[in-house]
């Protein structure tokens, strides 16, 4: 069924359009101002950051060319031989990848445990003393803000080359990151169980154990898994500064122009990271699903 849509008379349309213009004028002005500020900041940053677009355009071909040169040589007649030649270091690389995963795992677990211990001290709803909360939060912030690779650089000097500095660096960074996220979870919990335990005479430890922990545990595990995912990426580059894992071989291959090794190692890292992402995402969804079912 078609009916004619009534058109407004010209004057009325004009009036409506004017009102609309007035209504959005302030918003438009803000948008333009924001854009202008953004562009000015981008230009300033470009000057500061030494952006040379001419050189970029001139040298851009090197970017695909680099990847092309890392590509392994394949021919149909000898695909299998080519493949085994490309992945010649597979046993060594899988071992190093395993090390990388273990560094990430051990670091994450150690960091999660200390973050778990600290997060309750950083929650204003469980600790009455402002000073303790403040100090704990600053400690966590310090652990979080100093990049892990800087910790690793310093630890390599203190503990020597190997996995130990990598594990410690990741553990410290994870303590800071998880401690903060855990504390945020704890601050959002239901206060009634805590009051219940306190009212029936529980000590502070008992309040935390029976009032807070049951509410937050599945969330904590989910955050820890997410952090593990991030730490796997972090552990892959720990070797750049000599702190164990596959990074050492990667930076060597890049620096010494072992092109096909670069692509092989990169591919292995990417596949591993994707697998880990996939598995942890599954587990996390299940955990959060449990959480939802319980509520």
């Amino acid at each position, binding site marked *: 069924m078609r009916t004619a849509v009534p058109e407004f008379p010209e004057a009325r349309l004009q009036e409506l359009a004017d009102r609309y213009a007035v209504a959005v004028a302030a918003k438009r002005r803000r948008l333009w101002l924001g854009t202008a500020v953004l562009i000015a900041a981008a230009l300033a940053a470009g000057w500061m950051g*030494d952006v040379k677009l001419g050189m970029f355009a001139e040298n851009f071909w090197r970017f695909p060319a680099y990847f092309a040169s890392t590509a392994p040589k394949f021919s149909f007649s000898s695909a299998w031989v080519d493949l085994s030649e490309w992945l010649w270091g597979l046993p060594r690389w899988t071992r190093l990848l395993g090390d990388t995963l273990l560094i990430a795992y051990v670091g994450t677990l150690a960091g999660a445990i200390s973050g778990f211990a600290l997060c309750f001290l950083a929650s204003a709803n469980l600790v009455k003393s402002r000073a303790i909360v403040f100090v704990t939060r600053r400690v966590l912030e310090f652990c979080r803000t100093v990049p892990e690779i800087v910790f690793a650089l310093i630890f390599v000097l203190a503990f020597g080359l190997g996995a130990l500095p990598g594990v410690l660096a990741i553990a410290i960074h994870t303590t800071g990151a998880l401690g903060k996220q855990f504390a945020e979870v704890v601050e959002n919990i239901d206060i009634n169980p805590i009051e219940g335990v306190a009212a029936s005479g529980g000590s502070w430890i008992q309040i935390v154990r029976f009032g807070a922990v049951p509410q937050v545990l599945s969330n904590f595990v989910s955050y820890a898994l997410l952090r593990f995912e991030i730490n796997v990426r972090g552990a892959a580059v720990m070797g750049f500064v000599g702190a164990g894992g596959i990074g050492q071989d990667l930076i060597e291959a890049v620096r010494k122009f072992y092109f096909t090794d670069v692509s092989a190692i990169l591919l292995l890292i990417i596949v591993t990271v994707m697998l880990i992402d996939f598995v942890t995402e599954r587990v996390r969804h299940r955990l959060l699903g449990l959480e939802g079912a319980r509520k």
Partner: protein
Amino acid sequence: MNSFNFENQATIAERHPHLFRPDWWNRGKITVGFGAAIALFVYGIVQLDIPFHRLSDGMFRLGGFLQLMVPPDPGSWAQALIYLHALGETVAIAFLGTLGGALLAFPVSLLAARNVVANRIVHLLTRRGLDTMRGVDTLIWALIWVGVVGLGPFAGILALICSDFGSFGKLFSEAIEAADKKPGEGVLAAGGSHLHGIRFGLLPQVIPILLSQVLYYFESNTRSATIIGIVGAGGIGLQLAEQIRVLEWQRVSFLILLILITVSSIDWISGKLRFAIIGRREIA
């Protein structure tokens, strides 16, 4: 005081047995889970050959480093100026990296969102492409770009753009997929085209969310930008790595202090901007 008198606990337990019976199934699950986690932890420590005898020695040496770090001191004014310039580079890298990554990721995220482009193949390809970009660490991207444009902050900017492109593409497309369909349908029903639907139905919903994600990343990118100097991609990381290698601990602590101050001030600014844009809402 104790006006509320409990009866004998045994009678209560008798009346509600299901509340007092230990839940073996659940306890067993939790014990096995934690047991497995601890076992893997121990296996990791053994496999990685963690030298515990070096731990005490190392701690001692670390304490020595810490003592040498105070007070933080850049050495000279000229040196301090160099560091401040490096810091400026770092902020510039973080800013342009975030901006570039966001601008490039935006159109791609539309392709990767199921409710904008219904084609499964396009969806799958863009998603996997973004995952690959994201799977490569910023430091690795920096290493690659140093080979293309040479040493300096520009390589760092390009590295951040690449890794942010992946992260933003994923975050943006998820935000777009979570958007309400109805405004878009309204635009279509009023005679708008598919593009009109995106522009007037979808974008007004998602732009604030995307902006807040970008601001959030600006802060975390400042952290990343402080370290990509380690592989020669400009910024304060180069200075930091150098001073650590030559054991100039006072300068190291000065640089770390600079980084801490910068990151927390950027955190503060981006937090303010975020709240101004979307109000105190949780970002996904």
